[in-house]
């Protein structure tokens, strides 16, 4: 991360304080007496910063999860294994840049890594469909899942997508089937699967690489059945109810952990992962390796049953 983090809307008060401090510091040379004020403001700043991030609303988490400077899949892969090997293509006519697949080392382990990629530059974003995979992307991932099964390699997936691409050819190439088959095949793998929601976990398009033995979420990442915008427009019939939708759907890492679906929340640098890619990558790596080491004690059949039981248990209902 070369550029300084761009402040989000809810971070404005913090930004103002920072500017005041800068201003005073410029005059410090001529007016040494200012340094007590600066000290005072600095304290205020630190307090405000801590308090601000300690009581974020769901929509604030969403803003951080969608921050344009948010680290993406390639940023993590690169930091985990500088000479990771990317593998391309579904072998049947397409190589979807929105779904990055490769072989990489994580500490002492070798894993098959799969993740959605939003794209940084505009051209990049367009190629990646802003992180919305095509059916061909999910089929490339499926090919790698089978590769992992064949060579007894654990699978690590990184989830950061608004959802599967809703396009005409995507439908014609059976987006629904591509997702469904991945759900089915992932549930049958006998090697460990770890899924990490690094940004947005958007609906079926996220779950298609998310049927894992352990699901982790970054502190400010979100995971939901439908985009808050979609939810607001359908249930509230109004676009400006997004904040309400975020809250109602319980989409933040902590809430989803409480619902018993997520197995761990990964700390982010204060203010969000975009403040320090290396720390974010390191935290994620440590959490993943820990889970993998735990799972590596189990037999192939236990690994599979563990994953199937995990999802078998999910659901809230009563027998009236």
């Amino acid at each position, binding site marked *: 991360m070369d550029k300084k983090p761009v402040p989000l809307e809810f971070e404005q008060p913090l930004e103002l304080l920072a500017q005041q401090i800068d201003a005073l510091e410029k005059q410090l040379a001529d007016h040494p007496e200012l340094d007590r004020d600066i000290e005072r403001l600095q304290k205020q700043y630190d307090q405000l910063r801590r308090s601000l991030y300690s009581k974020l609303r769901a929509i604030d988490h969403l803003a951080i999860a969608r921050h344009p400077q948010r680290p993406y899949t390639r940023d993590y892969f690169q930091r985990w294994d500088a000479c990771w090997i990317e593998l391309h293509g579904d072998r049947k006519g397409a190589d979807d840049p929105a779904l990055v697949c490769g072989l990489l080392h994580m500490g002492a382990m070798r894993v098959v890594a799969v993740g959605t990629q939003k794209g940084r530059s505009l051209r990049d974003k367009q190629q990646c469909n802003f992180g919305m995979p095509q059916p061909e992307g999910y089929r490339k991932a499926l090919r790698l899942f089978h590769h992992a099964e064949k060579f007894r390699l654990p699978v690590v997936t990184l989830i950061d997508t608004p959802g599967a691409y809703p396009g005409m050819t995507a439908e014609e190439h059976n987006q*629904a089937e591509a997702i*469904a088959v991945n759900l089915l095949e992932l*549930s049958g793998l006998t090697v460990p699967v770890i899924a990490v929601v690094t940004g947005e976990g958007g609906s079926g398009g996220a779950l298609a690489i998310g049927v894992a033995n352990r699901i982790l979420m970054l502190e400010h990442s979100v995971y939901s059945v439908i985009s808050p915008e979609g939810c607001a427009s359908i249930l509230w019939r109004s676009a400006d109810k997004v904040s309400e939708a975020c809250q109602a*759907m319980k989409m933040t890492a902590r809430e989803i952990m409480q*619902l018993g679906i997520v197995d761990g929340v990964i700390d982010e640098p204060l203010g969000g992962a975009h403040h320090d890619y290396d720390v974010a990558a390191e935290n994620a790596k440590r959490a993943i390796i820990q889970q993998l080491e735990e799972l590596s004690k189990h037999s192939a059949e236990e690994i599979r049953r563990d994953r199937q039981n995990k*999802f078998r248990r999910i*659901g809230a209902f009563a027998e009236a």
Partner: protein
Amino acid sequence: MDLKEWFASRQKRNETHLVKQPLTTEEYCALWTQCFQCRELLYTRDLRNNLHVCPKCQYHFRIGALQRIEQLTDPDTFEEIDPDLVSTDPLGFFDTDSYPNRQAEATRKSGLKEAIITGLCKIDSLKAALGVMDFGHFGGSMGSVVGEKVTRLTERAQEKKLPLILVSSSGGARMQEGILSLMQLAKTSSALKTFADEGLLYISILSEPTYGGVTASFAMLGDIIIAEPGARIGFAGRRVIEQTIKQKLPVDFQTAEYLMKNGQVDLVVERQALKETVARLIRFHQPPSPAPAFVERKDRKTVTTAKKS
């Protein structure tokens, strides 16, 4: 209401049709139905006797789970399982109204507890596990209960070595249960994986409309996938796609016939032929006895599984 009550009330409705005297508006509406497609005014009883398919233009009217069950199963063979499974309100979800209120409202409208009815039945004398979704209840949305009922039905079919038939009709996942609804996609698909590994038959029937999370899970995982004529089936809704690609879609986009052309379904079968087709498919996939030698391996497999459980 349960099946018996429903058949009873249906009987009553029929009788009222026979009464010869000036009709109230309700009675008139109950008596006549206009075809959405050809606009023809149809005598409701004829329509029902024609399985809710317009005799003029073959338009397939959307039907409820109970009618579907009546159409597909042999009389009095359907035994419902898990009839009392109901949603709770895990998120305390409130938009312009609370989720519990919306559930009550849905039940008032549909007369059903949830968006799917599951059970064991006979189809042309063949035992089968059957699940039928009802778009009339909460838009056929899949929440924890639909996911759980589909999963339990799949497990029951596996345990009894029965073919599984699921008739889908859904707007997608149920938002009011948030991430729990999404996870039902994985839960049902995972159950179907174990089911498939046993070499058992799963026939998926797609009816108007089937979208979102249901299409992206069990509906698209059938060994054989059958769609009803004209049914609209897809992952993303037409409007969302048009907004995304900023262009109009062909009129027949996402229709059963369109999917057929794009290799997404095995068969498009008219409602009148549906039961017979399903029966033929089940019969075709039932191993004969004595089985040829090359089937032996599979038998052994099945036995060991039986031991396990």
